[in-house]
């Protein structure tokens, strides 16, 4: 399979599955979910997804594990103090950038 075909098919699969998940319940079903377990499971899903996607991938998101770990630390502290999404993200980038600058001085 060519690269272009692989890319196109992957995107088509992504888009189709994501669309059907949204479209079918909105168009077909009218009943409410009653099961407490299912409701609680669905409530927890986004947090589980984001945590699993972040750890350990965040540590490989920059040129070095050390600068990425510094950025992660900055993000975690600011998020703990409930700063906004943009603030946390920008400061994490700043943490990575500064750490890589400092590392250059010593290498």
């Amino acid at each position: 399979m060519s690269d272009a075909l692989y890319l196109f098919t992957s995107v088509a699969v992504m888009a189709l599955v994501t669309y059907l998940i949204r479209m079918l319940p909105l168009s077909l079903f009218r009943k409410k979910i009653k099961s407490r377990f299912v409701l609680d499971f669905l409530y927890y899903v986004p947090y589980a997804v984001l945590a699993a996607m972040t750890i350990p991938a965040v540590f490989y998101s920059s040129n070095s594990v050390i600068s990425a770990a510094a950025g992660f630390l900055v993000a975690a502290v600011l998020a703990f103090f409930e700063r906004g999404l943009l603030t946390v993200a920008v400061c994490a980038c700043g943490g990575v950038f500064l750490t890589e600058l400092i590392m250059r001085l010593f290498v």
Partner: protein
Amino acid sequence: MKELNFKTGLRDGIPIALGYLSVSFTFGITAVNMGIPPITAILISLTNVTSAGQVAGIGIIAAHGGFAEMALAQLIINIRYALMSLSLSQKLDAKYSLSHRIITSFCVTDEVFAVASGKSGDIPARYMYGLMTLPYLFWSGGTAVGAFLGAILPDVIKSALGIAIYGMFIAIFIPPSKKSLGVMSVVITAAALSWFIYYLPALDFISSGISIIICTIIAAALGALLFPRGKEAADNE
């Protein structure tokens, strides 16, 4: 009470659109960093309109994962939209036709859902179209800017920007972990499982998409079993 029409929908969409700009910009950069062509990154944003699913998707593409893995990963990560669509379907007004439902369901995101379900009374289709317009344009446009800038930015800047999307994820799951023991347990469980799957040599056969599925199902099920939420908490959503 203000009327719900295309114009009020557009206005309610402005803050969502601004928030999407930064996330989609970093998505574009992240995609290009992973070796995804800019055009593909843009196509993904145009056709998917979801952050977590798209990030997992480009991870799977970068690792040359299979289509079944892709489909299953998207199903698990995005299954929450089924609940949102289900909930939203009860709020649409009587004139909301099937064709409008088929079109507008395309853009049911967490934020669009949150704003729409916060409105009192039934929602007309024209309001939903207004609400979705700017977030959709900014989501796609931000991806394009990120993807093309990502291809020309110097390496030190790209390296620093690579963490941005994870910074946003962290800002989403840490604050509620302080307030809810259930959320904290789910986050720690999912992160620990993901860590073990990544580093244990015996589990090397598990790809990134499958890993997210396993971690999510186990952590969310454990949370629902051990930390069921009160009836009031669920009704207030």
